[in-house]
């Protein structure tokens, strides 16, 4: 005879299985995940997918329109830019720049913001006051202007842009993790860990961190979208990554002169940017709906 308790346990799904099922039913999440997977694939396999060298300039084949226009050709499906570089290849390699900046800048800001937020939420009191002060100071500084000034002072390169954005975009991590940690701190498992004599560091790293991790992931996706948009804006203004690197923002800036005669030349990189950011946002919103306590029934 089967143990009634055990068969009951089998019938009840684990929280993880419930979360997975809900994710698969979330339409926005699925669309976002597919979009993100496509861009990730573009970035990873750019050397295999790109029909040409993204840096190769051939002045005899300048400004060929994309295939859907009258004199477009399938040899250059998305046309060529003002220096005769294949647009499709540049878009594919541009995905690498956007994703690299998004990922690394987000990791940097997650470390800064997460540490500050969790420390403020866990210790409270004076630590909380210092963190609130740092947060207010950071929020009062105009991000675009500060980033532009730093890049102008130090010089634009991928590393500089990533570091600047990483050091500027930690505010939301701090705000959310502070609030979430404050709530977790009062729960029984934290008191239990304290009672058996765990150090504060161990409690934060091993007890609280796994429990606030979903909040981390949700903010990280939204912040990644933000970092990608900011990089594009900085590069567009000429103070981000520098040519000839194929950044989507930079491609729009370089094509600005031609945009009145051939609007597709700014429409293509813009759509790529829009699709990527939209996918990341849908993906993040889906995760939030499923993972955050407010999203559960």
């Amino acid at each position, binding site marked *: 005879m089967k143990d009634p308790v055990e068969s009951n346990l089998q019938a009840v799904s684990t929280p993880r299985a419930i979360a997975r099922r809900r994710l698969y039913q979330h339409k926005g999440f699925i669309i976002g995940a597919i979009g993100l997977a496509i861009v990730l694939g573009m970035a990873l396999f750019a050397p295999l997918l790109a029909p040409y060298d993204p840096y190769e300039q051939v002045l005899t084949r300048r400004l060929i329109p994309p295939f859907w226009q009258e004199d477009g050709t399938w040899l250059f499906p998305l046309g060529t830019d003002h220096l005769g570089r294949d647009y499709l290849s540049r878009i594919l390699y541009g995905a690498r720049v956007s994703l690299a900046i998004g990922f690394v800048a987000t990791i940097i800001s997650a470390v800064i913001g997460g540490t500050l937020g969790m420390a403020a939420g866990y210790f409270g009191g004076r630590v909380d006051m210092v963190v609130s002060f740092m947060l207010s100071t950071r929020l009062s500084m105009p991000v675009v202007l500060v980033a532009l000034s730093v890049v*102008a002072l130090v010089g634009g390169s991928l590393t500089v842009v990533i570091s600047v954005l990483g050091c500027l975009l930690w505010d939301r991590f701090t705000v959310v993790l502070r609030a979430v940690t404050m709530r977790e701190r009062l729960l029984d498992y934290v008191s239990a860990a304290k009672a058996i004599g765990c150090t504060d560091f161990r409690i934060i790293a091993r007890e609280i961190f796994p429990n606030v991790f979903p909040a981390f992931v949700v903010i990280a996706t939204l912040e990644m979208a933000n970092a990608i948009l900011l990089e594009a804006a900085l590069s567009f*203004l000429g103070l981000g990554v520098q040519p000839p690197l194929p950044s989507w923002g930079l491609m729009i800036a370089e094509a600005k002169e031609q945009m009145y005669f051939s609007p597709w030349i700014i429409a293509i990189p813009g759509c790529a940017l829009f699709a990527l950011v939209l996918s990341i946002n849908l993906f993040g919103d889906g995760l939030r709906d499923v993972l955050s306590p407010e999203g559960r029934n």
Partner: protein
Amino acid sequence: MFAYTIKRIGLTLLVALTVSFISFLTLHLSGDLAQAMAGADAKAADVERIRQQYGLDRPLLVQYASWAGKALSGDFGESFYFRKPVTELLADRFPVTIALALSAIVFALGLAIPLGVAAAARPNSWIDRLCLSVSVVGQALPSFWFSLMLIIFFGVTLRWLPVSGSGSWQHYVMPAIALGYYATPALMRLTRAGMLEALDSDYIRTARAKGLRTHSIIFKHALRNAAIPIVAVSAVQFGFMLSGSVVIETVFAIRGIGHFAWEAISRSDFPVVQAIVLILAFVYVGLNLIADLLIAALDPRLRMQGEGV
């Protein structure tokens, strides 16, 4: 309330002081100022004379104190590029940016409030879903690209609006849309959430029981109660718009401080950059303080929390 106010003002002043020190430092980290003022091919003796004349040989903190004192009285020094007082240069550009940010916030509220109210009045209807799409799309649109597409569509294809400059009110239409659209999602979600909460409350049930018309319930009773956070967040968004105008003003070549800041950064004219960063930070901090106090004054829970600390 008094203790909370004092605490918030204290924090604001501290933040303002820190930001001013940071923006002071950026100027000094940008390189040798005496050399920059004298020009690249100046003689060493001339550079030294300028260094003494402007007090650049004094300790950093002394220089900061004298700079901050002057900045407080509205003197931000001289532009390296124009050789004119920064204050004078900013005076005729600041109103342009204020006008742009104001029209942008009017556009944002004009779109966000009706849509948010409509969405809250009929949750899960097609209009609610439309609002959700508007906000999801709005957050993903790169502002500079959106501006360029507006230029192509309304400026070049339809020829309805001028594509750049700031001569007439028509010049502000597209920039205001581009800048305001960015703030719309946040304001719309806030309106929707506030309205949903208000419509669910007891006084609305009373109003319904009295037999008031839906129209009057929504606009006279619910919206009025949902309006306070909207006003507060609009103030903060306005601060964001002033700094967000760097991108939009540059795209549309509007002669405001955002475009001016970008030009100044490109020509390493750091006294100008410093002054603009400082002014924008102060405006933001001030608006935030007002918003916080406004919310606290109307929310007893927050007020008490401030007194408890």
